[in-house]
């Protein structure tokens, strides 16, 4: 694994919003098939990093290299085309469509068929959509209105949407927030197995340390925009600075009390 080329490398990434310096000089790399966790207390700048990686905000400074291309100032759709799937901290799906149609839109976009004015979308790529839903365990929900789904199911739907462009990199911002503890472990197991199988790199943030320590190959710790630690789960667990931050925040390796907050 260590000899594989970098899927993603980030150098000195920086972002300020007016007076708020949200991300300061963050650098790291990610290899194909690797599962990397980005952790840190609230407001550390994790979501901001994700937004820069998939082009939804432009960095104030620094470079992002994805699959050998400089994507620092590319648009979200160009980055998506390169093979990046993303899920959001606050789920973003299409509530006026059914679960299956949510996936079909993504598939149609991937197949460059959006400027088709005539075909019937509900009949397009049905099988692929079903396969994706089955992959995340939602085959039985295909015809449900997306607006009616429980929060945990929306998170799984987002994962299926993110897989529609056969991504090489998955960006998952708090993929299990708002889920029951058992569901969390299951969703991350599922993600990990998909990632290993297709050799997809995964970058995820998570407040539940059980989930992080079980699945991450490597962990990055972000505090107030700065990376303060990086290493294997064991290293990070032992790092005194990390312990201090998490103890100081009252977030000892278990963040179940945040559940209500993130929904």
């Amino acid at each position: 694994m260590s000899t594989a080329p970098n899927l993603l490398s980030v150098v000195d990434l920086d972002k300020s919003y007016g007076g708020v310096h949200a991300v300061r000089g963050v650098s790291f790399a990610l290899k194909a098939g690797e599962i990397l966790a980005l952790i840190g207390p609230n407001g550390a700048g994790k979501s901001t990093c994700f937004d820069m990686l998939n082009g939804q905000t432009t960095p104030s400074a620094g470079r992002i290299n994805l699959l050998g291309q400089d994507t620092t100032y590319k648009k979200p759709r160009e980055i998506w085309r390169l093979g990046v799937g993303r899920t959001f901290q606050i789920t973003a799906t299409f509530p006026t469509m059914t679960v299956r149609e949510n996936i079909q839109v993504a598939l149609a976009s991937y197949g460059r068929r959006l400027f088709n004015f005539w075909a019937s979308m509900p009949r397009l790529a049905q099988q692929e959509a079903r396969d994706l839903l089955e992959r995340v365990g939602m085959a039985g929900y295909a015809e449900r209105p997306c607006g009616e789904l429980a929060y945990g199911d929306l998170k799984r739907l987002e994962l299926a949407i993110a897989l529609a462009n056969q991504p090489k990199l998955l960006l998952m911002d708090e993929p299990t927030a708002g889920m029951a503890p058992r569901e969390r472990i299951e969703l991350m197991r599922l993600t990990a197995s998909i990632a290993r199988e297709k050799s997809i790199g995964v970058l995820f943030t998570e407040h539940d340390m059980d989930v992080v320590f079980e699945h991450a190959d490597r962990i990055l710790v972000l505090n107030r925009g700065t990376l303060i630690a990086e290493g294997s789960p064991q290293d990070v667990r032992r790092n005194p600075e990390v312990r201090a931050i998490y103890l100081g925040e009252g977030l000892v390796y278990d963040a179940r009390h945040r559940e209500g907050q993130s929904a």
Partner: protein
Amino acid sequence: MAFYVVQFLTGLASAASLFLVASGLSIIFGVTRIVNFAHGAFYMLGAYVAFTLTERFSGAIGFWGGVVAAALIVAALGVLVEMVLLRRIYHAPELFQLLATFGLTLMVEDLVVLIWGPSDLLGRRAPGFKGAVDFFGQNVPSYDLFLIGLGPVVLGALWLIFQRTRWGVLVRAATQDRDMVAALGVNQKWLFTSVFALGVFLAAVGGALQIPRDAVHHAMDLRIIVDVFVVVVIGGLGSIIGAFVAAVLVSELNAFGILIFPKISIILLFLVMAAVLIVRPWGLFGKPEVTARRTPGLTVNPWRPLSSKGRLAAVTALLLAATLPLFAGNYALTVGSEIAIFVIFAASLHFMMSVGGLASFGHAAYFGLGAYGVAFLAKMAGLPMITCLLLGPALALAGAALFGFFAVQLSGVYFAMLTLAFAQIVWSIAFQWVEVTGGDNGILGVWPEKWAASPSHFYWLAIGVAALAVAVLRNIVFSPFGYALRATRDSPRRSDAIGIDGKLIQWTAFVIAGTFAGIAGALFAYLKGSVFPDSLGISLSVDALVMVLLGGVETVSGAVVGAIVYKALSIFLVSQTDLSKLILGGVIVLVVIALPKGIVGVLETIRQRRRPRPEPPLLASRIGTAE
């Protein structure tokens, strides 16, 4: 040289009233997030009430006292409106707020005619400012100089109020963050009411101060509101400084535009507005608006293509409609044709508004462009009717491509105001460019050829085209393009993240909607045998909005039902009463408050309640245990 200076001073004087009204609109928007369409109506009421008071009471005290008293009276009316109407719709989507306040505007227009009569009223000159000042041989009315001084004084006074008083600090805090002020324990209701009162007061003063310069008439509301929208789009909603700078800019452009393009001075305004929007989409001093609100409780039923039963019903309805000429007279057939044309128009707006979330307040522009397109081709090029019908809408397509490009850069209220301003620009061109468009006299003699001339033939043509247009639009709704458009409306973040080029999709939808509106306009030209600037007017744009709303914004077939009901109702009303605007305005307000889901939405809800929901299959399937 002196001539240019005088022109400049005239511009500055016009800027004063414009600034007063625009700053009022901006202050109200800053705190309540409502774009008050009725602001022009309050401006007009200010002028009318001041007219009455200054006629009744003589002397300097009578005049200046009358101006202030008029503004206070109108502000009190504003408080009433806020408490009775606006408090119910603070959390509704912008579209509903704009429509409700537009309904109010319509009602005021009729009431004003009822009270003061339809003719222009010439007010008194202002005591103390009756003469003119000689300026290198050119006369400058001294009242203009007074107005020029007044603008900065009001700006300064507002600044003092917002910086130095407790109330002003609260207003500024509320403008930054509404919830925070509520958390501080401030009585939000009265804060909103007082802000609304101040905004209306400013508008009414603006109107009252116009009486020595201009005749008071019952169309002054729409004229000012369009200028005000242009001002806040350029200056930035919510910014008082922005309102001041943009009011001066717009007034000067109007003053000098006449010199540069005497026939179509409005072009200059358009160019400047376009330039500002490209560089700063939120206006010179504005801030980006947060995402549009959606009404909680509106249905999020997934849309379905018609079932075979539904299709059968639609075809049956069409066949029934086609039998009308067998038993109805010519008048009924003409009404039927008009309704069919408006079905196309409403369906085209529905397409961009319901599917794409693009609530255009200027959709009539494309209707009218289609009509003028046909008139040009038929009268000037003398082309046959079929060719005209096919090519006429191309003018609408071109207009939609040009204006749509700028409009889709914005969203929400900015989109609404910009589309309205664009439509008004097209209207002004049709109105001012007399050599080409005939101006107010329109273009006459656009009659259908023999094969379509009889009312029954034209009726069949109209319902045929309408059925085809609705079918095509519906099909697009369920095509990949339609889903992509809905995706950009449902979640911009998600659609961005799955590679959808939102702006391009929305622009395309705008062009499609504009073209279909143009088809409706083309038929309309032949139905009426003539084209007038009215076909581009604001009231037609709003008619379309009301049709969509009445049918149900969140439904697929609402536009058709809404168009039939609304058009039939309004044709009936116009034939029965002189107060059609009053009644229509009332209907609009009622629909917004009582029937936000529209007719079809309500029917759907009833049907769903009757039918027990099917159990979702395999509810228990979980991760890991999935088959």
